[in-house]
């Protein structure tokens, strides 16, 4: 076994030009397919991130019917508990939205505060790292860092976004004057922002604290944001604005949306949109993969060609090894090992160059040239692709070497040596 390894290494080293050409063939093949697939993968995640649709594809947003007598389709603790029992549903989170006017440092904004369960809040992308603290009963806001577009200076009418174009919005620690509802006598309060949410246009808070807070500021009046029944009084239970139904997995989403709609809820999911993007990306990947495939086929033919030439060129050596009494399967192994190593060497170099293409060319130069944000990743080479490409290159080498190697072992020793 040791001599095979030694012969193999010596052959690869001493036959520099042949080794170089064969390896170059694999390098080109691996590089084109890995870079192109990497670009496909990078584009996909970049597109999904741009739309904010990644991650929550298993979420379905439902809205209850408040008007009319279809009280059974209102979103209450009872109806949501029922939904939670449905097959394919992993969790249901109520959302309690209240229209608010917010004021801070001369800026006025109109929007909604959405109360959601604490466990749902925990899944959000906060800007500042915080220790998870026990709720102390105070209502605190998590504010999207894109909400600047909703705030305007009450004197000039300029938006916060316009004024602080280059700055990331960060109101952490600020205390906002909040008016619940748009009536002159609407209840008012002061709320602190405890953290910012990355890439979000929403304002969230903990639903349980929110409920207590709303009750407190309403006093004997109707609770802000809660609908009234036919005779003008409040319902006995909380009526939620919407709810988030989390499906167990992506495949269950479509069926679940259909079922919810059949049951009378207005239901929508990100999945349709994500599916559309996936479809577009798939087309891009097929085109890119196709080009890579052609390069790959060319390089396989290249390896086959160089391996065949190598074997013919070494006919006498093969004959000699047979005359000296080399086992036929060891001879086969020698050639396949050599072919596999050439493939693997090409695969590793090709992979390294692919990382160069992805990181330097695509993610730095092209991003700069197209004036995209600096953290845009147009090409991503995941670990599985890296591992698969090297394995594939080895396999490709072995396959390309198979026919000439088989031929070599079938040679009659004396014919080979006298050639």
């Amino acid at each position, binding site marked *: 076994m*040791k*001599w095979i390894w*030694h*012969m193999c290494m*010596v*052959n690869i080293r*001493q*036959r520099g030009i042949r080794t170089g050409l064969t390896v170059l063939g694999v390098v080109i093949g691996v590089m084109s397919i890995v870079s192109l697939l990497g670009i496909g993968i990078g584009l996909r995640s970049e597109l999904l991130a741009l739309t904010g649709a990644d991650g929550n594809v298993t979420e379905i947003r439902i809205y209850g019917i408040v008007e009319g007598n279809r009280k059974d389709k209102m979103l209450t603790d009872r109806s949501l508990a029922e939904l939670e029992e449905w097959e394919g549903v992993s969790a249901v989170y109520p959302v309690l939205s209240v229209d608010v006017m917010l004021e801070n440092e001369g800026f006025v904004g109109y929007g909604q505060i959405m109360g959601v369960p604490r466990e749902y809040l925990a899944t959000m992308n906060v800007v500042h790292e915080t220790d998870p603290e026990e709720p102390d009963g105070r209502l605190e806001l998590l504010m999207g860092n894109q909400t600047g577009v909703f705030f305007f200076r009450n004197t000039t009418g300029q938006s916060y976004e316009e004024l602080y174009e280059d700055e990331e919005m960060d109101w952490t620690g600020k205390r906002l004057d909040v008016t619940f509802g748009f009536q002159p006598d609407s209840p008012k309060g002061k709320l602190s922002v405890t953290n910012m949410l990355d890439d979000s246009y929403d304002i969230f808070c903990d639903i349980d604290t929110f409920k207590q807070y709303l009750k407190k500021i309403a006093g004997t009046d109707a609770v802000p944001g809660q609908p009234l029944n036919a005779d003008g009084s409040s319902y006995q239970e909380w009526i939620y604005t919407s709810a988030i139904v989390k499906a167990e997995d992506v495949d269950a989403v479509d069926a679940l949306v259909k079922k919810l709609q059949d049951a009378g809820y207005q239901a929508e999911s990100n999945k349709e949109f994500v599916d559309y993007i996936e479809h577009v990306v798939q087309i891009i990947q097929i085109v890119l993969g196709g080009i890579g495939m052609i390069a790959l086929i060319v390089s396989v033919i290249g390896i086959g060609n160089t391996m065949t030439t190598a074997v013919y060129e070494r006919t*006498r*050596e093969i004959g*000699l*090894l*047979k*005359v*000296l*009494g*080399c*086992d*036929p399967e*060891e001879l086969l192994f020698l050639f396949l090992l050599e072919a596999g190593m050439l493939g693997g060497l090409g695969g590793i170099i090709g992979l390294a160059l692919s990382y160069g293409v992805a990181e330097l060319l695509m993610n730095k130069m092209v991003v700069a040239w197209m004036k995209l944000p600096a953290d845009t990743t147009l090409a991503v080479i995941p670990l599985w692709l890296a591992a698969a490409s090297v394995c594939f290159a080895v396999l490709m080498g072995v396959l390309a070497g198979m026919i000439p190697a088989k031929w070599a072992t079938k040679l*009659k*020793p*004396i014919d080979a*040596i006298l050639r």
Partner: protein
Amino acid sequence: MDIVTMEHVTKVYGENDTRVWGLHDVSLTIQKGEIVSVVGASGSGKSTLLHVMGGVDAPTSGKIIVDGKDITKLNDEQMAVFRRRKIGFVFQAYHLIPVLSVEENITMPILLDHRKPDKEYIEQILEMLGLQDRRKHLPNQLSGGQQQRTAIARALANRPSLILADEPTGALDSKNGKEVITMLQNSVKQLDQTLVLITHNIDLAREADRIIRIADGELVEE
């Protein structure tokens, strides 16, 4: 003791109209320790005789017993084992592996037999053939005589029962040829080996214990 016994060995190339007799009903025996010269015109069947004896070519019919084993009954794998353990070949064109050093070429048959080379014995062969200073050289860095001595050393490496040399001096000038043959014969004697040697050079042939003459695939006299 007989090391080689050939009984009615025939080798035919081609079929029907294109039939060519390589060997025609050849029977002979070779004793252990003998040095035998095979002489004859070109195409007379000398090489064929050597090839079937060494198991690199199969006879069409007949029986060949080498060191007690009927080699006509062996399959490819058994034949490979037979060749590497029992036969040492020396060819006119040296046939060294170009990418391996002198020492590596010499130990190759031992490695092919999945054994560890016996350092002392390899040293002895290197010394006998005057190759100690050349052990790290590649074949293309050697003269023809040195290359052929390397090939002889390789043939001796596995202590085979039989050394088969096919015109080992054919590519060398007479001085180098003489030297190589002397070394070959000395080594064979010293290591108590048996040698079958094809040669055109009648002077060299005469130094053998016995001369086998061959013409048109048949033994003419012994």
